[in-house]
């Protein structure tokens, strides 16, 4: 990739907010805890889901992420929701009639369960991604003792995914510039051999990266990324949201 244009900023929304300023590992841990609390909530405890939704909305407002933006980003869960819609149609007895359709009651409960927990979980994750850069996420995971090999692979993917996409795009433009206009499947040969070339180029780049790493004294172990500690106040602040959600879920279980 050459030039400073065309980079994918991904989901990150650059803002100046308290949520953006929080240490990434604290945010990752809080998100995970919140999702667990949501998943552990009994499906008929409607008031708990209401509280969880309010919590998500509050964090979104604190992060200067508008609710319409958040709602638009929830579209990522669409495939799972589509699955949930089928459950009431194919589920077991007893059935109930809604608008002339015979719907399965366990199916309806299953669909509601997937829909509400999925939406809340995805919303929390979308907020994390909107307020934390990928680099911060990686240092956060590193800080949470995720094995260095995983964070390193994820880092390489982010870094070189864009380089390879850029190369692929330039190859495509070069093909088009020579009058390539495939209309039928048997004309796809050029695309296929481009893919092969791209694979070989990526492989060779991998070798060059390795040589450049060796030249800087790489011995097989990646050094820890630079990061700073979160203080107790910060942990307390981020713990508030999952703690509320977990307490509510627990209360709901004890009440049944």
């Amino acid at each position, binding site marked *: *990739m*050459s*030039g*400073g244009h065309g*980079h994918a900023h991904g989901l990150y929304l650059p803002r100046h907010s308290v949520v953006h300023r929080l240490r990434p590992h604290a945010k990752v841990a809080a998100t995970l805890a919140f999702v667990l609390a949501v998943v552990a909530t009994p499906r008929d405890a409607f008031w708990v889901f209401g509280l969880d939704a309010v919590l998500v909305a509050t964090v979104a407002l604190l992060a200067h992420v508008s609710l319409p933006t958040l709602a638009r980003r929830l579209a990522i869960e669409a495939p799972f929701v589509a699955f949930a819609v089928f459950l009431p149609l194919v589920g077991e007895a007893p059935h109930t009639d809604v608008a002339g359709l015979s719907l399965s009651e366990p199916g309806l409960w299953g669909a509601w369960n997937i829909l509400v927990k999925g939406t809340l979980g995805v919303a929390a994750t979308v907020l994390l991604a909107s307020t934390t*850069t*990928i*680099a911060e996420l*990686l*240092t956060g995971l590193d800080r949470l003792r995720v094995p260095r090999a995983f964070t390193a692979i994820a*880092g*390489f993917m*982010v*870094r*070189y995914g*864009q*380089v390879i996409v850029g190369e692929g795009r330039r190859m495509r433009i070069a093909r088009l510039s020579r009058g390539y206009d495939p209309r039928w499947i048997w004309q796809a040969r050029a695309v296929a051999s481009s893919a092969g070339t791209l694979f070989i180029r990526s492989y060779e*780049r991998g070798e*060059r*990266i390795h*040589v*450049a*790493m*060796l*030249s*800087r*004294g*790489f*011995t097989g172990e*990646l*050094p*820890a*990324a*630079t990061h700073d500690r979160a203080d107790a106040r910060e942990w307390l602040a981020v713990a508030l949201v999952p703690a509320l959600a977990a307490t509510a879920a627990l209360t709901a279980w004890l009440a049944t």
Partner: protein
Amino acid sequence: MTVPTPNPTPTPALEVEGLAYAYPDGHTALRQVDLVVQPGERVALLGPNGAGKTTLILHLNGILQAAGGEVRVGGLPVAKAHLKEIRRRVGVVFQDPDDQLFMPTVRDDVAFGPANLGLRGDELDRRVHAALAAVGMTEAADRPPHHLSFGQRRRVAVATVLAMDPQLLVLDEPTSNLDPAARRDLADILQSLPVTAIVATHDLPYALELCPRAVILNEGVVVADGPTPEILADAPLMAANRLELPYGFHPTHT
């Protein structure tokens, strides 16, 4: 047995003696390379494509192992036993900054080399800061490398190597793909650095500006070694080695 006499000249920064190398496919890249570089010298490494410039560079820090001959950096032979020290002493800036910059942020990338040398904490931070300041990229410390312009990425690539405090800086095609302003910035940075440097380049005016001495490598042999203005002015020598000055450029009239 005689009393050892003090060495009249300091240990050369780099000694290459009779270096030969053939790639596994049988292609001979280096036949017989001899080169001595004194501390503080800046030497241009010239030669056509395929002359063996990059192969020679990969021998200077032990990425490739010499098939014949020897390479010494500051008196220390390049051999498996002390590769770590060799790679500290020799900093190589590769042609494509995308090959060199792979960490999520500029700061982490510049810290990669010194961290491999075992530096941690404040000392590591100081190195990173000093290296970024030397190339004027302090502001970019927290940015991901792929969000920088090509010229900025090249400067960060130089910083990644400076952070290791090298005795010998080796640059492979430092001006390729740079716009004239970025090329100028890099020249100013390189001129401000008090290190021994080898600059492999096709950019002959750049070689003339930065390097008082030039070496021509062709077909794996050093065919010329002398003051850069004289070498560039030697038209038959230049033509014989497929080197050509930019149109209208006269190395002795500047």
